């Protein structure tokens, strides 16, 4: 197992390098010019050319890429073209809100979705099943920003229970931290709940038809024991997989959620950087996201072996 983990970890390096090259190439050929954005609307072409030269954007692709790769290998993601701040500092400022949002969303979604899926499978074909699945379809179909606005209107403006926007660091207390995250986590979590609940239901249905479940029931084990001890563990592999895949969805959804609730997270940083063509920031964030995906995949693969001893590497 240790050898496998080491191999998988090392295999992330070429993946990340390829991602880096790909992103760098895309940015190089994509239309748009940060110098034009910096210079502002009233700038002359000569001003823009001078700024480009100062930023080093007029140098050949290979020179720019080589310099970036060398710096990245030395854990230096460069400096933002716009803010003149180190990219690592900018990412550092934004990690906590995004990780907090994802964490709360994930916990909220799993707590709600897994029992929903289990109950739907248990009551398959009944009105309970249909109600749960209708809810799941709705959660998946309604855009995140719509849910966000409805929640903000109801729970922030009408009931005054939560703030409309912003983020409070966890260092200032769990209460204030959570108060800023509840509404965004619910709006983002609705999509995720739907996804996990549907997969849980499907996986549980398959498992509940197995002989060992029938045996467990015949031995007189209670419904809860059958569902949550015997069946759920064996249905967990697809559920864990979809939770992992869902993290990718969370990152995408976070972009919208962070905008709607004005949370200063990585999603907003990414969008701002793309719109301004802030190349070093885009490259830094993409590398970070790629690393997260690779890490999540690794963790899921490892979890498989615990959930299903038949899986071996």
């Amino acid at each position, binding site marked *: 197992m240790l050898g496998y983990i080491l191999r998988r970890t090392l295999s992330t390096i070429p993946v990340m390098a390829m991602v880096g090259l790909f992103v760098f190439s895309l940015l190089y050929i994509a*239309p*748009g*010019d*940060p*110098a*034009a*954005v*910096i*210079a*502002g*609307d*009233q*700038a*002359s*072409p000569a*001003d*823009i050319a*001078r*700024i480009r*030269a*100062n930023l080093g954007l007029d140098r050949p692709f290979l020179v720019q890429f080589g310099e970036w790769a060398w710096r990245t290998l030395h854990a230096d993601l460069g400096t*933002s073209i*716009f*803010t*003149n*701040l180190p990219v690592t500092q*900018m990412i550092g*400022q*934004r990690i906590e809100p995004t990780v907090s949002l994802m964490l709360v969303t994930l916990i909220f979604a799993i707590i709600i979705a897994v029992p929903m899926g289990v109950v739907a499978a248990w009551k398959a074909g009944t009105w309970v099943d249909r109600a749960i699945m209708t809810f799941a379809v709705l959660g998946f179909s309604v855009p995140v*920003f*719509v849910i966000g*606005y*409805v929640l*903000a*209107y109801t729970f*922030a*403006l*009408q009931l*005054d229970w939560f*703030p*409309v*926007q*912003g983020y409070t660091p966890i260092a200032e207390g769990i209460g204030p931290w959570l108060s800023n995250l509840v509404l965004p986590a619910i709006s983002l979590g609705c999509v995720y709940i739907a996804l996990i609940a549907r997969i849980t239901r499907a996986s549980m249905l398959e498992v509940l038809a197995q002989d060992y479940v029938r045996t467990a029931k015949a031995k007189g084990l209670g419904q809860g024991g059958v569902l949550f001890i015997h069946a759920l563990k064996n249905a967990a592999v697809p559920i864990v997989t979809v939770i992992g895949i869902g993290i990718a969805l969370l990152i995408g959804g976070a972009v919208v959620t962070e*905008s*709607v*609730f*004005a949370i*200063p997270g990585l999603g*907003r*940083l990414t*969008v*701002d950087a793309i*719109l*301004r*063509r802030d190349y070093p920031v885009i490259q830094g964030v993409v590398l970070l996201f790629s690393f997260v995906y690779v890490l999540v995949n690794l963790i899921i693969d490892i979890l498989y072996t615990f959930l299903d001893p038949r899986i071996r590497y």
Partner: protein
Amino acid sequence: MDRRTFLKGAAGAGSLAMSGGFAMPALAQGAAKTLRFVPQANLANFDPIWGTQYVVRNASVLVWDTLYGLDANQKPQRQMVESEEVSADGLTWTFKLRPGLKFHDGEKVLAKDVVASLTRWSARDPMGIMLKNIQKELVAVDDNTFRWVLSKPYPKMLLALGKTNAPIAFIMPERIAQTDPFKQITEYVGSGPTKFLKNEWVPGAKAVFERFADYVPRNEPASWISGGKKMLVDRIEWVVMPDPATAAAALQNGEVDWWEQPLSDLVPLLKKNKNLNVDIGDPLGNVGSFRMNHIQPPFDNPKVRRAVLMALSQEDYMRAVVGDDEALWKTLPGFFTPGTPLYTEEGGEILKGKRDLDAAKKLLAESGYKGEPVVCVVAQDQPITKAQGDVTVDLLKKLGMNVDFVATDWGTVGSRRALKTPPTQGGWSMFHTWHAGSDCVNPAAYPAIRANGDKAWFGWPESPAVEAEVVSWFDAKDLNEEKAAIGRLNKAALENVTYAPTGFFLTYTAWNKKVTGVTKGPIPTFWGVAKSA
């Protein structure tokens, strides 16, 4: 239902809720020393010489002071300067700084700081460049005195040093001002009424300014960026909100105190809220525009440009940009800001009266237009440009032109418009933008009006008649001469169709009634602004 409609509904519902008297959250209570402000855009960089975006300028007036400042009558008034003296031949200007000026790091403001700052500014600013071109000497005479010697008189000297157009001639410490004007500074030390807290800066989310205790305001009342800049709050937090509905909700909820530019769609709803004030923010407003590429077909032909001008309806543009609130817009048969001393409609007949599509089609046919593609590039991430682009495309189609509508983002438009290649080879035929009305009060800081060919702004119009009148304005000895020159300039620019004005529009600003002292102007000013608990 689209997103814009939905957010109107959501924000509107919130407004009604507040009108009904729902309580403010605890967050807004007892924070009278901190003012939370939602700026028009993200403060993504902070060097007022290097980056000339309006939001950078607006933040910069909090941190850096100027030698002169324009007042509400657009007259330059002394700010950091105690006195000035100009020689009889108009060639030597000697300025004395007022005593007690300090930078935020505790150092005194000295003449050498001013010299370095003006040197950096004059490399980037159009008026500064003119001054640099006639500069014989710019030196510090002693700690408090500096001298500027020119090779020919420059009557607009004080306007140049006090204008509100970016880049403003801000004064920085010498060590910072020595930075290459095309490179960004990294220290934000000024001598203005507030200090910038770099350690709390989260670009894209928050910028914080703290009252500078050692700032010595002038004795005169504050007026725009001149006069006594007395800070009545200890701390100003700029909270960046990319989503207008969220900003509206936060303002209604008391989580922020002042929203610089509410989306016009949301204004009626904000007006219903008894806790809020809503009013025109900048009386100088904005001039909508699209520019045609004068060096590529079909718009290299003045008849084609005139045909478009003859057909366009500014009312259509303005309704698309600001909606149906007629208090927010007016037609503009010219290029200069309505309500300012040099405003003129001379030669503006082509933009007045009933729009004549048939006559425009006839003129287009006479021009020899043969269906060449018109590549219309529009930044759809800017609602004002996107709305104008939609109207233009409809107009050109009605005229029978072959339009290729390229809706992209501002980053792409910004770089594409610099290309001089034919539209079929990556170039462009037209793009949309708008100019702050404060930039359009005279030709000094109005590059869009210039028609000096290769040196002109994007589109590269060329008209010796326009340029001659720009020179006439600079040389004018009094207001009457200035007005005469601007009248002729307006006429010449319309004949040349230097660019197409799409109308004049205003925007609102909205603030909580707990906040007092909000004034109208091209820049949101924070001196004299107080907030009750």
